[in-house]
C-alpha cells in the first residue's frame, strides 16, 4: 500500500503548517471529501451491480436446491464427459499456443526483420474476430459442405462436430495470449544476456533454457494463465463447431447452455459455478503475479 502512496492523495503536511496556504495548495488538487465519497460510492455501486451480483448469483443459484443436487449435477456422466473434454481441449490448445508464443517472441524480440510490425498486428488478429466467425471459418473449410468436406468424409476423418474442430476453434480464439505477453517483455530485455551466454560457450538451447527462460518465467505463466482461462471457458467458437452431442462433443460451457435451455437451472448453475471458480482462481493468481512480480511482467503490457 505504502509504496504507491505518490499515486494517491497528496502527501500530508507536517502539523505545524496547519491550514495555512501550503495546505490549501495541496487541497487544490483533490476534491472535497463529500465529492470523493460520492464518486467512490458510485464506482462501488456500479461494480456491485455489474460484477459482484452476477458472480454471487451463480453460486446462490447453484446451491439453491442443496448440496446433494449440486454434487449430483457435477458427477452425472454427461457433466463428467464435458469436464473431460474441456480439460482435453485445454491440454492440447494451451501448450501449442505456448510453443507458438515462445517462437514468435524469440523471432520478434531477438532479431530485426522487415514486416515485424505487420506480423505483430496479425498475431493479434483473432482478438478482433467474433467467436462465432472464428467457428464458422473452420466449418467452411472442414464442414460437410466445405472445401475439404468430401475428401474428409471419404477418408472417414471427422473434424467438425468432433473433438479436432473444438480444439482448432479453441486454438484460434486463444491464439494471441502467450505471444502478446512475451513479445513486449522479451523486447524490453534485449539480447545482452543471451549474447554473453553464447560468447561464454553455451549452446543455443542452453542459453534459452538457463538464461532466457528464467527471465521470462512470470510473464510466461501470466500468458498461460489467461490462455487457459479462455480455452476452458470459450463458448461461441466452440458452439459453432461442436454439434452439441451430449456426452461426446459438449464442453463445460456448452453443457451449461444445454442444461439451461432444458430449464435445469440448478444443474446449469452448478456446472457454471465450476467455471466461475476457475475464473476466480485465474483472477487471484493474476493479481498475485502483478503484485509480487509486476516488475518482471512487461511494463508496456496492454490487456
Amino acid at each position, binding site marked *: *500500500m505504502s509504496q504507491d502512496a505518490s499515486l*494517491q492523495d*497528496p502527501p500530508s503536511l507536517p502539523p505545524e503548517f496547519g491550514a495555512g496556504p501550503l495546505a490549501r*495548495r495541496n487541497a*487544490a*488538487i483533490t476534491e472535497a471529501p463529500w465529492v470523493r465519497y460520492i*464518486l*467512490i460510492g458510485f*464506482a*462501488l455501486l*456500479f461494480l456491485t451491480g*455489474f*460484477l459482484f*451480483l*452476477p458472480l454471487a*448469483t*451463480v453460486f446462490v443459484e447453484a446451491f439453491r436446491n442443496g448440496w446433494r443436487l449440486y454434487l449430483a449435477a457435477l458427477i452425472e456422466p454427461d457433466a463428467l464427459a464435458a469436464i473431460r473434454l474441456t480439460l482435453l481441449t485445454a491440454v492440447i490448445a494451451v501448450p501449442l499456443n505456448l*510453443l507458438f508464443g515462445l*517462437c*514468435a517472441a524469440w*523471432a520478434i524480440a531477438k*532479431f*530485426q*526483420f522487415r514486416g515485424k510490425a505487420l*506480423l505483430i498486428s*496479425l498475431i493479434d488478429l*483473432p482478438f*478482433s*474476430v*467474433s*467467436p*462465432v*466467425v472464428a467457428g*464458422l*471459418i473452420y466449418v*467452411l*473449410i472442414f464442414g460437410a459442405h466445405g*472445401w475439404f468436406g468430401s475428401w474428409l468424409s471419404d477418408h472417414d476423418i471427422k473434424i467438425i462436430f468432433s473433438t479436432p474442430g473444438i480444439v482448432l476453434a479453441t486454438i484460434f480464439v486463444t*491464439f494471441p495470449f502467450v505471444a502478446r505477453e512475451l513479445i513486449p517483455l522479451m523486447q524490453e530485455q534485449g*539480447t545482452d544476456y543471451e549474447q554473453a551466454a553464447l560468447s561464454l560457450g553455451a549452446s*543455443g538451447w542452453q542459453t*534459452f533454457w538457463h538464461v532466457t527462460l528464467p527471465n521470462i518465467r512470470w510473464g510466461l505463466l501470466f500468458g498461460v494463465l489467461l490462455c487457459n482461462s479462455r480455452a476452458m*471457458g*470459450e463458448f*461461441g467458437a466452440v*458452439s*459453432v463447431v461442436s454439434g452439441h452431442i451430449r456426452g461426446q462433443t459438449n464442453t463445460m460451457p456448452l453443457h451449461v447452455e444445454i442444461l439451461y435451455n432444458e430449464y435445469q*437451472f440448478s444443474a446449469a*448453475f452448478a456446472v*457454471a459455478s465450476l*467455471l*466461475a471458480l*476457475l*475464473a476466480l482462481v485465474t*483472477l*487471484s493468481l*493474476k*493479481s498475485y503475479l502483478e503484485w509480487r512480480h509486476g516488475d518482471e511482467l512487461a511494463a508496456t503490457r*496492454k*490487456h
Partner: protein
Amino acid sequence: MSATPVRRARSVIPGFGITLGFTLTYLSLIVLIPLAGIFLKAAGLGFSGIWEVVSSPRVLASLKLSFGAALVGAAINGVFGPLLAWVFVRYRFFGKRFFDAAVDLPFALPTAVAGIALTALYSPNGWIGQFLTPLGIKVAYTPLGVVVACTFIGLPFVVRTVQPVLEEAEKELEEAAASLGATRWQTITRVILPTVLPAILTGFALAFARAVGEYGSVIFIAGNLPMISEITPLLIIIKLEEFDYAGATAVAGTMLVLSFALLLLINLLQAWVRRRNASAR
C-alpha cells in the same frame, strides 16, 4: 519474407530461421488461411449476392441491434470506466486492491456463465429485475438486456486503458492550474480530461469492438426474437444450421470487414495517444 537480420547479433543468437518459420506457418494455418477462406467464399457470391443477404430486413435489424447495443454499452463504460479508473488511481479506500482486481472479472468469467448469471439477475423475479419490473422496465429478453451484457463485457477495456494514463498524468500541471486560479472543476475539464480523452476513446473503441461480436453473454439475456432482440452472431449460427452457407458467409464477411475497420481505427487512436504522450513530455 526477406529474413535479413540487420543486427550483428545475427551471427551470435541462433534460431531465427526455425522460430520465424514456425511462427509464420502456424499463423498461416490457424489464422490467415482460414480467414482468407471466408473472403474467398464471400467473393464467390459477388457484391450483389452479399448485398442481397445483408440488406434483408432480418439481417439489417440484427446489425442495427448488435452495433446499437454495443455502442450504448461502450458509452456507459465510457462514463463509468474513467470514473472507476479515477477512483482507483486517486483515492484511498478500504479494499481498493480487491475492487481493482475485480474489474478483470469479465475477462476471466466464461461468457456463457456471465450470460446465465445476468439473465437470472435481471429476469422479472431476479435480484435486480424484481425492482425494475414494477417500474415497467423490462431488461431480460429485450434489447435492453443486450445492452447490459455489452456493458458487462466491455468494462475492463475502458478501465484498463484509462488507468495507466491517469497514473502517468503529472500532478504538477493540476497544481499549476490551481495556482493560476482555476477552480477544481475547470482543472478537471480543461487539464485532466484532455490528457485522458484519447485513452477513453481507445477504451471505448475496444469495448465496442468486443461487444459487437460478443455471443455467449448476450444470447441468454437477449431472448432472441427475430427482428427485435436477435444479434448478428446468432443470425450467422441460425443460417449455418439451415445449411445456408452462402448467407452465413455473407453476414460473417460483412462483420469481419466492419471489425477490421474498427481495429484500424483503434490502432490509429493508440498511435495518437502515444504521440500525444510523447510530445507532452
